[in-house]
Structures are given as C-alpha cells and as structure tokens.
C-alpha cells in the first residue's frame, strides 16, 4: 500500500518503521524538519516538510494516489482536519486518526471517523495489569 503518515513524533516515526519493514511505500509529513531525525537511519521512506492540513503539502505527499493515511501529530484538531481532507476530499480508502481527548474521540466516532485514543488504551491496559496483579 501507499501510506501517508502525518506527524513524525514517537508514534509517527515508529509507525513509519513498522510499515516500511512490512513492505509498504511510506511518506511521512511533519512541519518541523528536525523531527525527521527520529527516523532510524536506513528507514525506507520519503519525507515532506509542511503542515499536513495544507492541501498543497498533502498533494506533494501524493494524497491523490494514497491507499491509507494515518493522522498522528500531537494536535488532535490537526489530526481531525487532516483525516477529513483525506477521506472526504480525496477519498483515501483507509484513514486513521489519533485523538488524545476521550470525549472528542467519542464525538468523532459518531461522526464516522476511524479513531485511536491512546489515553483510553493506556487506561484500559493499566486497569487490566492491575486486575491481573490482584488475581495473582
């Protein structure tokens, strides 16, 4: 698949690594060029410097032929806007949005966006680990 990753933070950089190792064509977008230093040397991907909510930046990242886009910047609202441009204006088939705020995450799901909420995943996982500890 041709996959665009918006945001080259910890999650973005690790996602790039995993997806490129899995054999996908990956492009990563970040407004701050220094963030690309987080990509492991030898990672096979293209980088585009710019704000992912800017259509021109998305076009230069190849949004018109992308099979998937993952919006994983540190700003929920940037992710939401990027995801909607991808899914509704460019009809990218697979779009995943990261949203830290659990309340907003619920609203987004009701609006039909495919989301991942790291906050609730962490809470659930810690809860599960504590539960296991109790049982032992």
């Amino acid at each position, binding site marked *: 698949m041709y996959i665009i990753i918006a945001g080259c933070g910890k999650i973005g950089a690790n996602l790039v690594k995993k997806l490129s190792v899995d054999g996908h064509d990956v492009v990563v977008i970040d407004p701050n060029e220094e963030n690309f230093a987080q990509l492991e040397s030898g990672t096979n991907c293209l980088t585009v410097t710019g704000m992912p909510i800017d259509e021109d930046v998305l076009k230069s990242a190849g949004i018109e032929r992308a099979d998937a886009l993952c919006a994983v910047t540190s700003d929920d609202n940037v992710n*939401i806007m990027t995801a909607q441009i991808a899914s509704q*204006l460019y009809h990218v088939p697979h779009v995943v949005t990261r949203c830290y705020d659990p309340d907003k995450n619920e609203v987004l799901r009701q609006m039909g966006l495919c989301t991942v909420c790291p906050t609730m995943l962490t809470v659930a996982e810690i809860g599960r680990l504590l539960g296991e500890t109790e049982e032992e």
Partner: protein
Amino acid sequence: MRIIIVGGGNVGYYLVKTLMAEKHRIMLIDSNRARCERVETAFGGAYVEVTHGDGTSADCLRDAGIYHAEAFIAVTGQDQNNLVSCQLAKDYFGVKRTIARVKNPKNIRVFEQLGVDSVISSTARIAGSIDSELDWADVNTLLTRKATHVRVREALVDTDSPYSGKRLSEIGLPKGMIVVCIVRDGEAVIPDGETVLTPDDNVVILGNESDLPLVISNIRGETL
C-alpha cells in the same frame, strides 16, 4: 440572537464589540485567560458573557450554553481549531448557522466541503479586491433577485487545465453556460466559438449555479 464566538483575539474582540451594539446575546470562549479577562472587562454584562476553555471540546461548548445558540462563529488564529469547533457545533449540537475564519485561503473550499456554512478569509478578500475591479458579489446579489440560479464567476486558465489550448466550441460547456468575456494581457476579449483558451486567460463565465463549480475547477486545472 444568541451567538457563540470562539476566539477572543483581535478579530473576536471587535466582533463582540460590533455584535453587542446590535443587541445580540454573546458568549465568548477562549482558552487564554488574559484574553477572556480583556473581553470581560471591556464588554462583560447583560449582552456579553465569557467562558474560559477549549472551544473545540464538547464539554466546554455545552457549559457555554451551545444548545441555546442560533449562530456559531469560530475566529481563532488556527484553521484546524476553527474547523473542529464548527463541526461540533453543527453536527453534534445542531446549531443552524456556523461561520469560520480561515487563515489559508485554500481552506475556504475545504471548510465548505466539510460542512461549515460560511467561510471567511481576509487574505482572500484582500487578494480578490486587488485582483479584480469588479465586485462579483454585487453582480451576483443582483442576479439572485432577477434569476435565482444564475451566477457570474471568474477563473484563471491554468496550464494543467483540460480546456487549455482548446476552442470554446470544443470544450463542451454545460447547456446555458456562456463565457462572457476573456481578459487577456490586460485586454477584454469578447469570445466566440473559435476563441482558443490559453494559460493565464482570465475567464468570466455566466451559468447555472450548480454547473459552475466543475467548470471553474476545470479552468483552474484542479482535480476535485
């Protein structure tokens, strides 16, 4: 009217000032306490209230009384925040009329397609008034009164346009649509079927409102 305004920077500040003078009931939301206090001190009272919080959070909007709002205006300096605020207001809380400010003029089309009712870009306004002496908004207001579906638009022919290098008779404009005038090298050309469109021609076109967007984006060489 009950109006919620998100963003108490300079645009928000003067918007509150203008709208309160017209006896609207305003709730201003801003995430910056200093900006909230500035508006509260200047205008706080029967017509203006202030909420300190995140205007892109459903909780905050609920606290600010969004269920009573008839209009919602997002004028922060961040396009993505203005979009999310307006979408929450419209899709989640059912506010009838949403208005957003955008900094990047290209986001006008993006916001409109993502459901915001009115989108305002001061950059585009200023660029537009420099670009053309004619104010099509006035012409269109007139046309709306005379013939409801007809509008005038103008667009610059791009090198990527499928119409570029073709005669008007070849490009297959929708029925009822005509190219009124082409401004080429500062001269107005009244075209006929044999006129060839070339890059950088400024095309003034009259036609059915529903047919115009596609033709305009073809002229501009944009892919929808």
